[in-house]
Every structure is written in structure tokens, then in C-alpha cells.
């Protein structure tokens, strides 16, 4: 499974912070691989709408998170503006973003 996360928008644009971060779970240690796959499953990424939430009217500097999951031939993308109210998706985002910071 290949998972990509990208943060779009925000008060300022920082090339490295705003770049897409990709992880191929097949290249990860077993524990981390399972963790990501479980978070993807719990977030029901394959089932939820492609646009989960749009920024509010007249927004500015609002961040939007884009998660793309590929598994074989299946690909699905989810967009969610902050605040991400779906707790499971928020957990997945939190894990992926913290991981990419390390």
C-alpha cells in the first residue's frame, strides 16, 4: 500500500513542509506497516467521500489535507479542510504528518 499526504494552504508556503510525503508500507518494518494499514482501515479511506470537507466561505490561510491511498490497481483520494472533524481520519493524518517530520 502506498500512502501520500500533502498539506495545502496555510499562512505561508514552505516548499518542504507543503511537499507531498509518500510512504510505501511494503518498505516499512512490520509494526509500522500494520499501524498505517490499521489507521487507513479505521479511517474508512476507501469508503468516504473524495471531498470530505471544503474550507468555509471566505476562508483564508486555511489548510487542506489531501490523502491518497494506492493498493494494487485501487486508488482513492480524500480531501479535508481543517478542522478535520472525522476522528479516525484525523488520527491517520496526525500519524503520517508526525512521521514525515521525523
Amino acid at each position: 500500500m502506498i500512502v501520500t499526504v500533502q498539506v495545502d494552504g496555510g499562512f505561508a508556503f514552505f516548499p518542504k513542509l507543503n511537499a507531498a510525503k509518500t510512504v510505501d508500507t511494503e518498505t516499512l518494518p512490520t509494526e509500522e506497516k500494520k499501524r498505517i494499514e490499521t489507521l487507513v482501515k479505521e479511517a474508512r479511506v476507501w469508503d468516504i467521500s473524495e471531498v470530505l470537507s471544503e474550507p468555509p466561505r471566505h476562508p483564508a490561510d486555511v489548510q487542506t489535507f489531501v490523502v491518497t491511498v494506492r493498493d494494487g490497481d485501487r486508488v482513492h483520494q480524500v480531501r479535508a479542510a481543517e478542522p478535520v472533524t472525522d476522528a479516525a481520519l484525523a488520527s491517520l493524518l496526525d500519524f503520517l504528518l508526525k512521521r514525515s517530520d521525523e
Partner: protein
Amino acid sequence: MMLKKVHSLCGIIPPYMLESISKAELANTEGRAAARRTLALTTVLQTKRRMDGARISRVMAVKDGSIPHKNRRIYTCNNSESYPGTLVRSEESDPNGDTAIDECYEGFGATFDFYKKILGRNSLDNTGMDLIGSVHYGKSYNNAFWNGSQMIFGDGDGIYFSRFTQALEVIGHELAHGVTSYTAGLEYQGQSGALNESMSDVFGSMVKQHHLRQKATDADWLIGKGIFTNQVQGVAFRSMKAPGTAYNDPHLGKDPQPAHMKEFIHTTEDNGGVHKNCSIPNRAFYLLATALGGYSWEKAGRIWYAVLRQPELVKNADFVLFAKLTCEMALKMYGETVRDAALAAWKAVGVIN
């Protein structure tokens, strides 16, 4: 029938002052109109007060919203992602002791005062809108944003970013998004989105310069100064004076902002590069303000504000239209010399050939 005795409640601004504002050449159209409305309302109310008592007058004045009044409400999200959160400081209350809460309160005050004293504007919507801010949003949250009705500020991760409330121009920037949404309503996409961002940088920077009583040539023209921790190789998020030079850091990358139209960034990211290309009109404003000398808000700021309220500034305006309108407004307000300076600024950034 005996009338019940009521307590007298006086207006904040005396009628002679309202009359003066309503006729003043220096006051803008909205300011004069607001003063006239308030004066008319005051006259009506004085009569009504005699008849019905003062209590009614206060209710009507507050409802009309035309009398400038500062009403700040600061909340804490307690590091949750739910806002507005818990109310922790309201107008005229004592300092809270929490740095972010007090910075937000004071920053809102400095911004309100700038719009009121310099531009004759009564809060973001010009009818006395309450200023609402939520601090301590999220955990290690590296952002600040305007959600269409209030401001939200993060504490930063403490590694690369610290509190977003500590830069007054950032507070002024977020509140300016409110002003833009109540005036031109510039669409947050492409060049109109970059103009929207630039308006926030321009007014955010002027709020800071006004607070510090800095002349244009003495200002740093930086946006987000002091928010980076000492781990970051950079001075701020953006430089209006020298776009592309604010930071160059292994973790964040290099400041991508262009200083000239020939470097304009075409992208689908970031709503079409609104935080990248805003540097072009930003620099034009800096060039004009420093060329004119004195305080940036004396002429350059008033020109920008007048254009922001012009119906000709359509929601999907591009840089060329905005440049043209500012040059026309410069001529109308201050004559040929200032118009020529505006033209030179836009030529220097390549928007006008």
C-alpha cells in the same frame, strides 16, 4: 399618566464631532456616510429620548452599529481543534496572564485602532463587528487562519515555529482578510487570491508600523517576524521589501516568492500560489510607500484602502486591473506626482510595462 424615570445613557461621540466628521474632506466616503447616519440617528434619538427615555437610544445605536466601538472576545481552545472554545478575556477585562491570550487581545486592539483612526473604519465590517479570536488551537499547530467570521491561532510546534500571536503583523494580516471579505471580496484563487493575500500583508504591516510609529523607510517590511525558533535559518515567512530572501532552511526549504512578474509562479497548489505570488503586489506597495516617504498609511495605504472599496475592483481582479486602479486613485487623491510614483512601483515589479 406619570412617566417612569429612566437612566440617561449618552452616546460615545458628541453630535458636534459627528457633524464635523460628516463634512470632513479627509474622511472617506464611508466614514462621512457613517457619521451622517449616526448624526441623523442621534438627532432622532435625542427627540425620542425626551419622549421615551434614554434606554431606547442605546438599543438603537448598538443595533445600527455605526458608532465605533471595540469589542474583543478572546477564547482558548485548550489545545483542542474545536473553536471558539472557552471565553477567557473580553473587552476592558484585565490581562489574563497567558501570553497568547493577551497578545491576541492587544493585537486586536492595535488593529481596530489603526482602522478607526487612520481609515475611519468601524471594525472589519464597518458596522462594529466584534473581534473574535481563538488561541491555543490544536496541538503543536503551525498556522493561523481566518475562517470567515473569526481568527484562529496556533501555538507552533516549538521546534521550528513558536506562537503565531507574537507577530502583530500576523494578527493584522488575519483581520485584514475580514476587511477584504466585507469589501472587494477578492476570490481566494490565482491572481485575485494573491491580491487578497497581499492586502492582508499590506494592512498587517501597516498595523505594525502604526503601532511602532515607524516611517516607511524605517520599517522591516517582514511578515511573521519572530515566529521561527532559533532552529530555523530565516528571519520571517515573507519579505515585502526583498521577496525570496526571508528564509533558506534545510527543513522548510527556500523562500519561493518572486519579486517580479517575469518570475510569476504558475501552480495549482496553494489556491494557485496565493502565498507565493502575493509578493509582487507586496513589493509594489513597499516601493511606493518608501518612494513617497513619511508613514506608509499617509498616502500609499489610503490609496490601497480606497481601491479595496471601489466597485471597479471586481472579485476576480488581476494584478493589472489592481495596478491601474491604484494609479487612477493616486491621481485622484494626491495628483500627478504620486500617480507617477505608483506607476513607477508597478513598472518596477513588471505588472505594468
